[in-house]
């Protein structure tokens, strides 16, 4: 029974840390919400164990841990896709900023030379 409480304690710790960080403005709302889902999942882990067994059975997974592993992999994959898209987006913005600054600087130099 004590072992089952470990994830709940970790989840509770994570939740407190998240609330503190969010109130200080250290993390964005999106990051807060994603982490909140993780902490709630951990807090209710002992109950989820029973639910997970039922879901695993319903989906035809012989072992519950296979379902957990599968779900975790999917979750990590979605996080990875999200991060890649964000990096790509930032990369495009930086590229455009560099181009615009370069063009503006060239324009400025030309005008100075003309004067």
């Amino acid at each position, binding site marked *: 029974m004590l072992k089952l409480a470990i994830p709940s304690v970790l989840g509770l710790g994570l939740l407190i840390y998240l609330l503190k960080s969010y109130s200080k403005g250290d993390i964005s709302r999106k990051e807060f919400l994603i982490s909140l889902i993780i902490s709630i999942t951990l807090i209710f882990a002992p109950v989820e164990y029973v639910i997970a067994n039922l879901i695993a059975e319903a989906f035809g997974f012989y072992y519950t841990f296979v379902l957990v592993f599968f779900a975790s992999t999917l979750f990590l994959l979605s996080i990875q896709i999200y991060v890649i898209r964000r990096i790509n987006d930032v990369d495009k913005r930086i590229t455009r900023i560099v181009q615009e600054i370069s063009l503006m600087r*060239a324009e400025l130099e030309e005008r100075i030379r003309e004067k």
Partner: protein
Amino acid sequence: MMGKVLISMVAYNEEKTIGDVIVRVRKVMESINEDNQIYYDILVVDDGSTDKTGEIAKKSGAKVVRHFINLGPGQALKTSYLYAIKKGYDLVVRLDADGQHPPEYIPHLLEPILRGEADVVIGSRYLDGSYKSSFLRDFGNLAHSKLLSLISRQRLTDITSGFRAIKIDAIKDIVEYDYPSTPAVYITLKEALLGYKIKEIPVKMYPRRHGRSYLNLRRLLLYPFKTIYTVVKTFMEG
């Protein structure tokens, strides 16, 4: 009437050749501009060079736009297009800064556009059949060109050639897209799908005399996959 022509070059660490290329370009432009009907400028996009490329280009009389970090050939090309649009040029001629593209062919690139026969004119190494590179490179180019000719329904023999003249209207239609790492292929295909007339003229190209090519073995092997990605991307964009 030709209007305003921008001769643009993308350069990355080309201090040994850039000055000579600019002088040759000016000589050619002056020879065809005896009656002063053409207003032309030479632009060098210095893509974050660590040598004196930008300074030499400026001293040689070219206009210089300098990226303070290296963005790659596709994005540097896009900067030159943005410059042409902002400054109101009618035509852009693009050539390599390493001396591989002889500026003496610039009048031949301009002619079909001035006669209204084409919107984009590409200088092709393979059109007269005399150019030979490594087997892998020639085969790759042939395969790409056949595939893209089929898709674009226009006869193309040198899809990867960066030596080209292009009307500003055709540039305006493609400038806001996100260019992949194979910009020549992407732009040609995009122009063809948008219905612009593409014409090729035979040109001679020379091996680079200084510096290193962008295409090393790793990039050369990845090139077919990048082209496939470019084709798929172009179609998905519509």
